[in-house]
């Protein structure tokens, strides 16, 4: 299996994601250039954090028109796994692969700090290495992470169980104080209805090594690896479930 990390002009966590996947998780990983049309046969596309196009105009607004993103859209529609981290999440929203939009943080300040997020659904391809209700400690670093969706969209998201992570206290309770950026429903990460596309504001690649203070982010990468590698019939003969995505 192979990961691909997309590089937009202005991406700045591209090498961090690459480092986490290749050197920490030890999986084949390639860089994907935004001007290309070729996904190089990757099994999972990672849209990294940063400031694609300087975040000018609106976060993620210009990046979504990149040639490569048209391929990513097709890839996602075909069931390919796509993980959007921070700015990558914002690009997925602009692209329409995930519902909703991002507003400025409620205090109008950039926020860089560790937060706690609760795993709301441990059955997704991005969380199967976690337990439902498990609390992960992962840093955020963003100016526009205040998740917004119109009332009806929000209702659908909740009803479909698309909320995968919520900001919470260390003990897992979801409070207004834990909601550092003002997101609706304390939403920190959501998936699409099919479950193959996930976006989240916290940076799992910054929480993948004990030396850097937390390894909780690995859970997300481990989950992806689990779900992708199980697809291989050699490893898991009863590949009935995975076949759906092929």
């Amino acid at each position: 299996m192979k990961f691909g990390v997309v590089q937009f002009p202005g991406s700045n966590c591209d090498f961090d994601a690459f480092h986490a996947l290749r050197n920490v998780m030890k999986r084949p990983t390639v860089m994907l250039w935004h001007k290309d049309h070729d996904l190089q046969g990757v099994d999972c596309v990672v849209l990294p954090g940063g400031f694609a196009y300087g975040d000018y105009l609106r976060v993620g607004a210009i990046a979504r028109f990149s040639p490569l993103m048209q391929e990513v859209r097709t890839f996602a529609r075909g069931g390919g796994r796509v993980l959007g981290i921070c700015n990558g999440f914002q690009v997925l929203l602009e692209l329409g692969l995930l519902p909703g939009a991002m507003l400025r943080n409620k205090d109008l300040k950039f926020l860089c700090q560790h937060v706690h997020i609760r795993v709301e659904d441990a059955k997704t391809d991005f969380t199967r290495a976690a337990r439902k209700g498990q609390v992960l400690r992962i840093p955020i670093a963003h100016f526009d992470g205040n998740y917004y969706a119109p009332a009806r969209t929000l209702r659908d998201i909740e009803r479909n169980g698309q909320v995968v992570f919520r900001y919470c206290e260390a003990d897992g309770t979801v409070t207004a104080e834990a909601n550092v950026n003002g997101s609706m429903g304390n939403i920190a990460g959501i998936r699409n209805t099919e479950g193959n596309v996930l976006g989240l504001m916290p940076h799992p690649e910054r929480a993948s090594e004990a030396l850097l203070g937390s390894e909780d982010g690995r859970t997300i990468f481990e989950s992806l690896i689990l779900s992708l590698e199980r697809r291989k019939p050699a490893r898991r003969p009863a590949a009935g479930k995975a076949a759906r995505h092929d």
Partner: protein
Amino acid sequence: MKVRILVSFKDSVLDPQGQTVTNALHTMGYDAVMNVRQGKVFDLDLEGVTRKEAEALVPEIAHRVLANPIIEKFDWEILKVR
């Protein structure tokens, strides 16, 4: 041709920047200001476009690129035809 596009939050979306400006103005004693909403303005220079063409082109650009229809609305006008 010069056109101006104004992009602002839909009324249903909270505008924290506008709110902050309102508060700042109150702190400074400008009590006549009841409310402020903040948006963006884009001034475009167009070339080789008729008014008719502009009427199709400008809303397209505004809708596709300059505004996010989930949270924003836009308005536009021709400033100068030349």
